[in-house]
Every structure is written in structure tokens, then in C-alpha cells.
């Protein structure tokens, strides 16, 4: 079961890496970065996965006996942190993108023509 998680998360990471390497639109690059982030979060949670494991929340007096069968709570707590920080950095990067668009008139990073024009001015 873990190999399914490994394959899906690494394929998400590689899809994101492909986007970062080849796209020229800044917004698409940021989307690819978010896809990488999702893949890494999935990978981290998958490391704590246990075959037939339970949610690490006590819901009744019976579930205290199942402590050994619970999944690892530490990666889940770390991913909670990572999601919030991803939100903040994405918002900051989009703000920078708006600033870039105001100064260069484009969101493309491969615009040697426009840059030459603005440098000549």
C-alpha cells in the first residue's frame, strides 16, 4: 500500500518539477511549485501510514486499547505546519508577481525582447 503512495507522490513531484523547468509563465511556475508541495506533503503523511491503522484520535473507551494500531501522528503535525507556510509563501509570491507585471508589463520570464526595449528606454 505504501508503494502506491510513494509512486503517486513522486509522480506529483516530478510533474511539478517538469512545470518549473519548462513553463515560462510565472503563475504556472507557482502552480507547479504548489503541486510539488502537495506531493511532498503526501509523501510525508505516507511515511507515517500503517496497514489497517486507525486515526490518532480517541473517540471511545475502546480506542485506548488500539494505541499501537494508530498511524504516526508526527508527520501529520508537521504537514499541518507545512500547509500553512505554503499558503503564506504562495500569497507573497503572487504579490511579487503582481509587482513584476506592473513593472515589466508581462508575466513571462522569457521576454528578452521586452526587456531590451525597457533597457533601451
Amino acid at each position: 500500500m505504501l508503494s502506491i503512495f510513494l509512486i503517486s507522490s513522486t509522480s506529483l513531484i516530478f510533474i511539478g518539477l517538469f512545470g518549473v523547468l519548462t513553463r515560462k509563465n510565472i503563475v504556472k511556475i507557482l502552480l507547479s511549485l504548489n503541486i510539488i508541495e502537495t506531493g511532498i506533503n503526501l509523501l510525508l503523511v505516507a511515511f507515517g501510514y500503517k496497514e489497517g491503522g486507525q486515526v490518532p484520535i480517541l473517540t471511545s473507551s475502546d480506542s485506548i486499547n488500539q494505541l499501537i494500531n494508530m498511524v504516526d501522528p508526527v508527520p501529520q503535525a508537521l504537514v499541518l505546519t507545512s500547509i500553512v507556510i505554503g499558503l503564506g509563501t504562495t500569497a507573497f509570491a503572487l504579490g511579487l508577481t503582481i509587482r513584476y507585471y506592473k513593472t515589466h508589463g508581462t508575466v513571462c520570464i522569457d521576454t528578452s525582447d521586452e526587456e531590451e526595449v525597457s533597457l533601451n528606454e
Partner: protein
Amino acid sequence: MKNDKSLLLNILAIAFLAVLAYFIYTVATDDGVGVKLTDDNVIENRVAYRYLNKNVLDENSKYDWGTTAEDSAANIVTSVVADYRLFDTSLEVIVLFITVMGFGLVIPREDRKIKESTELLYHWTPIIMTFMLLVGGYMFINGHISPGGGFPAGAIMSSAVLVGVLAGKQTISHTNLKRIEAIMGTLIFSLAILGFVLKGSFFVNFLEGGKVGDLFSAGLIPILYTLVAFKVSAEISGIYFEFYEGGEEHEHA
């Protein structure tokens, strides 16, 4: 702009990623010594075993349903986030604050406008906002006994503010948001210093636990999650107000 160069770039990227993927696959399936990632997860060998049994600080602490424990939160992820690893969480709140402040700094101050809302959205907004605030409030109050907690609750509450912004209703002013954020941030660190004064360590859970599974249990965790929820919602709502108030200034100028 689509020329031969971009096709070459795509092929090069695919080749590079294929080599990378081959190495990762080789490492993942290698028969070396040590614990493999694909091995079955044995919880007793991990640090999480102590967290699950709630005997990190006290070896003899017994974790049981309906009794007190070292940290009596029923949700073990919450007890990791908001008690054992609270330094992580507090610094995470600071990182979120810094990024939102940076967003306000870098965003240009002109050409911002919000379209007039439709009649339907304008009249339904109070009802939608009430339900969203109820769900958010439920989530941060019950963060220690059910899934949820301060961060998702803050996101839900800030989306209630977003609905208000989209409908053109002045629900809360930007200055008040900044005030809420400052007060909550100060309170979080005051509680940390209070723990240092009372029990001798920073961010210690100094309140009595109560029974596992009760609403009033887990000591300091519900209080801290309430503060975190309000701080996060004020921070994220600040992003929407950056657009909203900038547009207003532009119209008046």
C-alpha cells in the same frame, strides 16, 4: 513564442527528470542495511510511540479514557501540534505574519477596484457568514477532541470575511483586524512567559488537564487554539483588505 527551442527544452527537462527518477527508484528499492521506506511501519520504533502513550515528560504517566493524563487532549495530532511541539507552531504563526506583511509591502498601491456585488450575494451574505462563523467557532473550540483546530478554523473564519468583502459590506475595519492580530500575538507569548514563571519552562501546559474526551480538558490547548484561530483569520483577512481598501483610495483620489 513557441519555437524549436522550447521543444528542445521540454525534451531536455524530460531526460533530466528521467535520470533523477531512475536514481530515486534505485535508492527506494535497494537492499541495503537499515530501515527501508517500504518496510512496514512499526510504531514502537518511532518517537511517536511516546506521543501516543502520553509519557514524554513523565515515564509513569498512564493514558486512559475518562482519566487525567500528562496531556489530556483526545486528539493526539493536536497534542503534538499545540503542546509537545508548540515552538514549531508559534514560529509558524510568526512566519505567516511575516509573509502577509511582506505581501502588503510588495503589492502595488494603484488600480484596485472591487466590482459591485449582485443582489443575490448582497442579501445572502449575512446568512452565509453566520454559518461559516459557526463552523469556524465549532472547529477551534473542539480542536482537542475532534479533527480540526486553530489553523483551519482561522481559514474558515477569514473566508467568511472574504464573502463580506465580495458583497461590498464593511464587516470589520482594517485597523481593527490589525488590533486583533496584535492582541492575539501578544497573548500567545504572554501565556508562554506565564508558563515560564509558574512551571519553569517556556510554553508549558500549566492548567489542570481534566478528563480525556471532555470539552473542558487538555488545559491550555483550547485557549491557545482560540488565540491562534483569531490571529490566523485576522492575518488572512488582511490580504483581502489590501485589495479592498486600495480600491477605495483609488476611487476617492
